[in-house]
């Protein structure tokens, strides 16, 4: 302790040190000032204009550039954009639904598989662990493209696989499901706010493949830190397997799983590469999420003003999501300590 106080007095004595942290911060803030903060401010300014391709050269100095106030924002929310099949609240709802349903499937599956792998005396544990981790190491762009081909109507592995299965059941015709192009929703009532096309289910399948192994990894780590005595005590008290699962396993892995679930949620919410490579938001924007639509606005529609406004909206959506998830993390942290 004596050392600490002496160090503290050294801190105060050294006046040069006061400026030091700012020197250390300087490079990062110089760089971020130019390529992050300035563009962010520029983005807000552009969002109040009708910036289009014709303004690209002179930009803000362009004589044709008009400041139109909150028109872009109003157009986005009320559906006044010159874009087909886009309704802001439908896409927002779908985006949330997409992220929530993914996490709701990945986390339980990941935990159950981790518990299964943690069974004492199970043969070939290590081999399974090594196999189960494989989807985590494949880049999402590759996963997206490969699964896109798997769901190909004519040559895809999924229809060929289903053809084999239906062959066993006596069917003769090959299966031709238009996974990624069929627009009619198979279960119309599931999300009343918009069509959940077959493409959504195809993406759920592909993203399930991608998503659960990460949850299994996290859950395995948490499971291995649970003392075995707890299970022995529980079984001496006569707790059945499922009782042990709900009363010992679940409460003890919860502190690890909730941050993982939140991480999974934000990841799925902004899962640009996977969605863009698999369906690019189609068919008819039914699997569009906010980030893919924002990209479409800049890259293909070239409505820069609208795209800027949309990005500002995305920022606030992300902020709200962050504040909510942060609160959940905090709440569960104190739960874990209690």
């Amino acid at each position, binding site marked *: 302790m004596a050392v600490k106080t002496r*160090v503290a007095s050294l801190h105060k004595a050294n006046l040069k040190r006061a400026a030091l942290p700012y020197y250390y911060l300087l490079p990062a803030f110089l*760089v971020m000032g130019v390529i992050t903060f300035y563009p962010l401010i520029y983005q807000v300014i552009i969002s109040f204009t009708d910036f289009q391709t014709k303004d690209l050269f002179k930009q803000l100095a362009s004589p044709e550039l008009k400041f139109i106030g909150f028109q872009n924002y109003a157009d986005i929310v009320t559906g006044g954009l010159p874009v087909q099949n886009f309704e802001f609240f439908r896409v927002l709802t779908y985006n949330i639904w997409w992220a929530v349903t993914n996490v709701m499937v990945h986390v339980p599956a990941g935990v159950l598989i981790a518990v299964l792998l943690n069974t004492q005396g199970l043969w070939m544990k290590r081999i399974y662990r090594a196999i189960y981790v494989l989807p985590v190491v494949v880049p999402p*762009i590759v996963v997206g493209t490969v699964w*896109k081909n*798997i769901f190909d109507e004519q040559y895809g*592995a999924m229809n*060929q696989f289903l053809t084999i299965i239906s062959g066993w059941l006596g069917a003769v015709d090959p299966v031709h499901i238009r996974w990624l192009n069929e627009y009619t929703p198979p279960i119309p009532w599931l999300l009343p706010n918009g069509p959940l096309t077959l493409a959504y289910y195809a993406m759920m399948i592909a993203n399930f493949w991608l998503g659960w192994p990460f949850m299994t990894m996290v859950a395995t780590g948490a499971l291995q830190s649970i003392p075995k005595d707890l299970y022995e005590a529980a079984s001496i008290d006569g707790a059945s397997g499922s009782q042990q699962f709900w009363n010992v396993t679940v409460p003890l892995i919860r502190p690890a799983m909730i941050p993982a679930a*939140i991480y999974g949620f934000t990841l799925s919410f902004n899962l640009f590469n996977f969605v863009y490579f698999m369906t690019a938001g189609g068919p008819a924007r039914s699997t569009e999420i906010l980030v893919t639509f924002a990209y479409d606005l800049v890259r293909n529609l070239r409505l820069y003003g609208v795209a800027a406004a949309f990005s500002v909206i995305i920022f606030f959506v*992300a902020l709200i999501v962050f504040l909510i998830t942060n609160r959940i993390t905090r709440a569960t942290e104190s739960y874990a300590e209690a």
Partner: protein
Amino acid sequence: MATKSNNPIIRFLNINTSGEAGGRDLPLWRQLLLQLLTLFIAAEVMFPIMYIITLSFSSKSTRPSSLELFPKEFSLVAYQQVLDRPTANPVTFLELLRNSFLLSFGVGALALLVAVTAAYAFSRFKFKMRQVLMILVFVPLLMPAVGLSTPLYLLLNSFRVADCGGGVIAISPFMSCAQGLGRVYFNLRDSLWGVGIAMIAGALPFAVWNLKGYLDTIPKELEEAAMIDGADANQIFWRIVMPLAVPQLAVTFFLGFIGHWQEFVMPWLFLSQPKDYTLAMTLYNMTGQYANAIPWNRFAAMAIIVAAPVAVIYIALQKQIISGLTSGGVKG
């Protein structure tokens, strides 16, 4: 009792990670039931992997007419074709590889270089505005990369060098041709430099966050001891903190590298010339509307080539990556 067999094969297969002695044995029927389940899951995992591997080793350039999950032949024709001429564009595989590598490596290294001192400042110093500055650095983390793409596109697009004719060269945005745009020599937006700059915007806050989290865990006592021995702040940073941070610097770099390797948003938006294309862009070109000309065995080979470096790095650093992500999540 079955698991305590003397059969060496069964003993080999029963690899027990927990190392408990005389624990509860699994009854055989349960063992078999669980094996069925685990095998089923393994099949689910392997299904697309085997599918794509089989396709890539096929010499047939036609599309697959029936499901094959095990290679019947080991032909490297598809790989060879991809390496020779990856797309219909006049661009070689080596150029694509070089572009991808330059972007991943350059962005990762530069972001790290700029981030490390900032992370140290946030981790170790108490100063005015610390909270505000930290929020400023971390707020962009909330923004998905797509969200910054519009202004970066517009701003980078205004840096160009044009030949106005008559030997006059204009450098925008400082000068412009008297009439029209002139013939554009160089457009920062349409170059790997521009893409790299745009990617650093996303990489930097992440690098600061990831390094700060690690520096927080290095005990301060070492630095305090050095200070008492008369080391100044810069010496402490270079001689004590940096060597200790090397493992995390490596992890942050490689995490960035595998992220940038798959970067698609900025290159696909910015770049228009095939010679600047990256592997990720080429893979995208092999699906969708452009894909009709490309046989699936070549597509499969390309997918495996793109995935390989990421998979290797991930497997090598698995533990660090998982612990970094989870502990970071808990700390918030």
